[in-house]
């Protein structure tokens, strides 16, 4: 027995059902979402790509100024802290936007692929302060637009992006025999070369040697990051002169150029080991922890026949009957769980890309005056209460609840989707923001999959047993309960179940949810159910 195409498309190849969204009812629909997603502008970096590319060198300049002051004997730790906090805040906002982006996008398959490839080419946003700004940029300008094209292009752009070069220490690697290397007493760093072979292309244990790793590292020398612009650049003076053999092919010459590395990347992308490794990883990610050969084989053949056209490879996967059967063997990763929960609850307002707070969605009022409230009922202060007035209640209550310095009755506009770069300096109602963060970024930290913070260059684990654990389940139940309480409104749980589990609902789940002692717990159980956690 298999589920309907719509349900499988949403659960296995998307971020779950979002009531009201046009369902995908055919394989070609899914592929169309890949190209649509590649053209779409994501919700991050929040200020847009070109603005972000201005902010990155500015951050470098601010940090450089600070170092200069310190060297001159006038250190300014406060300035340094401010600059760092701003970068951290930018990352935090972009991380939230990434979750919202996945929840709101109608191009679910593209979103899922973006997560797959950003994990495949993992970068740690907290590697440095510049990478806090660069990582969202990396996903937006490399991963998302290129994931439907040729693998070679995706690989090259990913490897050469400053976020990757910094994360895997290529920006510090210097050819030991290069003029720059001799002068600076700096040396080779193999990190990127190793991970490129082991994680990005051939795969561990595919037959390459330590000598291949070292040679590849030599080929990569010269590639670094400009300290002022923070763009990738090739600097011949630090490139190791000479010829280097990787997997039997010779790269380089006495006069090294960037082309040497580009040739290496092109060759790696076409190796059968690479094709095998990546097809296997795709099928493992989307279909089953034990990937069926029947699905992988036609994908490899398509890859070879098309020269690594990824959309054709995805199509070959979707063409296989097994891609549409045997549902429920995979567990959603935390990111997928949270995003699909937000989608099920229709929790994001497409107009503002903010989480819809059922308490405050209509309350166009200034944030509550917490200090005043605490003073009014001193014994309450310790309880840490917060207020959330619904619509219509503020007018008579304004005298009590409105901050004395606030414009009583006037409505601050909701923050636009694309926040200005300095939007963080004028935070919206703190309660609302905290609530949204608790259900998004913070929830993912607690569940063990913080956005853009993989535990290693290998990315996040995705095996079933890794994520079906007592503590993970407890976290997910708590999330489901909080989300249901905040976002479900007065939705009838029986309707909710039908809408979001569709034909994936098991008989006992339908029965138990229908008997739940209250609506809240019924909605919670829909979101906590095995079939909502599996795919």
């Amino acid at each position, binding site marked *: 027995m298999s589920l309907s195409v719509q349900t499988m498309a949403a659960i296995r190849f998307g971020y779950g059902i979002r009531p009201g969204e046009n369902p995908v009812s055919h394989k070609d629909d899914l592929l169309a979402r890949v190209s649509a997603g590649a053209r779409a502008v994501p919700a991050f970096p929040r200020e847009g790509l070109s603005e972000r590319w201005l902010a990155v060198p500015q951050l470098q300049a601010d940090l450089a100024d600070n170092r200069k002051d310190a060297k001159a004997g006038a250190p300014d730790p406060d300035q340094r802290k401010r600059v760092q906090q701003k970068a951290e805040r930018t990352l935090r906002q972009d991380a939230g936007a990434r979750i919202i982006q996945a929840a709101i996008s109608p191009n679910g398959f593209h979103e899922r692929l973006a997560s797959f490839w950003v994990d495949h080419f993992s970068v740690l946003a907290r590697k440095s302060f510049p990478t806090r700004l660069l990582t969202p940029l990396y996903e937006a300008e490399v991963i998302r637009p290129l994931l439907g094209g040729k693998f070679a292009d995706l690989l090259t752009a990913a490897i050469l992006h400053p976020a990757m070069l910094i994360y895997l220490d290529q920006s510090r690697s210097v050819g030991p025999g290069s003029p720059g290397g001799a002068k600076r007493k700096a040396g080779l760093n193999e990190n990127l070369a190793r991970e490129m072979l082991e994680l990005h292309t051939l795969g561990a244990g595919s037959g390459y040697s330590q000598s291949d790793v070292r040679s590849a590292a030599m080929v990569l020398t010269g590639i670094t990051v400009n300290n002022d612009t923070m763009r990738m650049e090739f600097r011949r003076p630090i490139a190791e002169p000479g010829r280097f053999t990787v997997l039997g092919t010779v790269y380089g010459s006495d006069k090294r150029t960037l082309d040497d590395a580009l040739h290496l990347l092109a060759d790696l992308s076409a190796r059968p080991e690479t094709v095998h490794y990546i097809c296997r990883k795709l099928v493992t990610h989307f279909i089953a922890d034990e990937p069926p050969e029947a699905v992988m084989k036609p994908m490899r053949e398509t890859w070879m026949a098309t020269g690594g056209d990824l959309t054709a490879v995805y199509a070959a996967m979707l063409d296989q009957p097994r891609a549409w059967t045997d549902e429920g063997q995979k567990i959603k990763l935390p990111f997928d769980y949270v995003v699909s929960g937000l989608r099920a609850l229709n929790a994001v307002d497409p107009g503002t890309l903010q989480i819809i707070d*059922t*308490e405050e969605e209509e309350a166009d009022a200034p944030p509550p005056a917490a200090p005043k409230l605490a003073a*009014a*009922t001193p*014994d*309450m202060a310790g*309880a*840490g*209460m*917060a*207020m*959330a*007035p*619904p619509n*219509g*209640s503020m*007018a*008579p*209550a304004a005298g*009590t609840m409105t901050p004395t310095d606030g414009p009583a009755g006037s409505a601050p506009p909701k923050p636009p989707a694309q926040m200005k770069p300095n939007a963080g300096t004028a935070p919206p109602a703190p309660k609302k923001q905290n609530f949204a963060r608790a259900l998004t970024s913070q929830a993912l930290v607690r569940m063990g999959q913080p956005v853009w913070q993989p535990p290693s260059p290998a990315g996040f684990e995705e095996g*079933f*047993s890794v994520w*079906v654990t*007592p*503590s*993970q*389940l*407890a*976290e997910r*139940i*708590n999330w489901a*309960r*909080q989300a249901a*309480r*905040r976002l479900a*409104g*007065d939705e*009838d*749980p*029986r309707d909710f179940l039908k809408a979001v589990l569709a034909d994936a609902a*098991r008989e*006992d*789940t339908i029965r*138990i*949810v*229908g*008997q*739940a*002692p*209250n*609506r*809240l*717990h*019924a909605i*919670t*159980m829909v979101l*906590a*159910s*095995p079939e909502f*956690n599996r795919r």
Partner: protein
Amino acid sequence: MTEFLLSRRNLLVSACCLAAVPVLTPVTFAAMPGENRFVTIVLRGAMDGMDLVQPYGDPAFKALRPGLALTPDTGLHDLDGFFGLNPAAGDLLPLWKARELSFVHAVSTPYRDERSHFDGQDMLESGGGHVSDEKTGWLNRALAVMPRSDDRRAIDINTSLELILSGPNDSDVWSPRSDFSMGLDELQFLKRLYANDPAFAKAMEEAVRTDMAADILRGGAKNGGSGTADIARLAGGMLREKYRIASFSINGWDTHVGQKNQFAQAVKELALAINTLKDTLGPELWKTTIVVAMTEFGRTARENGTGGTDHGTGGCALLAGGAIDGGKVLGKWPGLADDKLLDGRDLSPVGDVRELAAAMLFRQFGVSPDDLTAKIFPGLSFDRSSPYLRA
């Protein structure tokens, strides 16, 4: 309805003094505008009234509930020689002795037969005569007809507005930061949810066996404090300020399995909520306060095969506050003999719990019987002779 006091101790008194008890009128309230307080507590999940206030004097009781029925000899707190209070509610005894606590037995909403929690709670909160008759909450509709001043405001203690206070009239929602704790019945439901999925069942079982269950029950709250106490403290604090009406919920009552333990837990929360309200309000304001705790329906008269009870009909409501003349078990006891049970399984509802609520609105805020029976509880029969006006 020929309802009245069941308690033997009060039977004689009430019979002779019925006519002499002064009926509170709106005029009385006009003379003290905006001072009275009213709190509703929705007990979600169908509170087992016969476990809270056990009719140990009914000859059929013990046989119906061999595992749950207690007597004063086995720990029940005797109330009046016929009814006794569940030992887990011991913290409520001081209120009972101070005549600030009563119970109303064998009551229900007009909801019958289906026994769905969702629909039952909707009926309880909307105050209608049938499912989906009313789209707004009765407490919200009551706000429109109360002689109100700006000083009289209503508040829902929750993270979102509950149906009982939902509607066109202003009411505010306040949330304590610490979450409501999850009821043991809800935890039981989660176990059932995962029962047929071995991987999830195993994870759940381990979570429950370790302290992660405590995490789940606390809703992930960092502090170990009870959410209920925070909620009640918040409600009491707000009632000391501008607010006169507050409503909140206590979950944990759907005791299909292992009721003894689960029920005790929920009852302790209820007792904690009421005592916290009293403490927070202080003695002066408590005198002006009435608390009504009610549930969507009762539970089966018979214990089931898993040490619990299933969805029933007739239930029990609780009345507390310094403004009541308490220490009574009100209602007309229908009896537990086979031929007295509704459908041969449930305690027969002999009173409409909406009448109790109507009487409290009349007493506390002078809402007229016409408004009460037309706008707030459509189809309810209620007038100034209602015995609950003297409760």
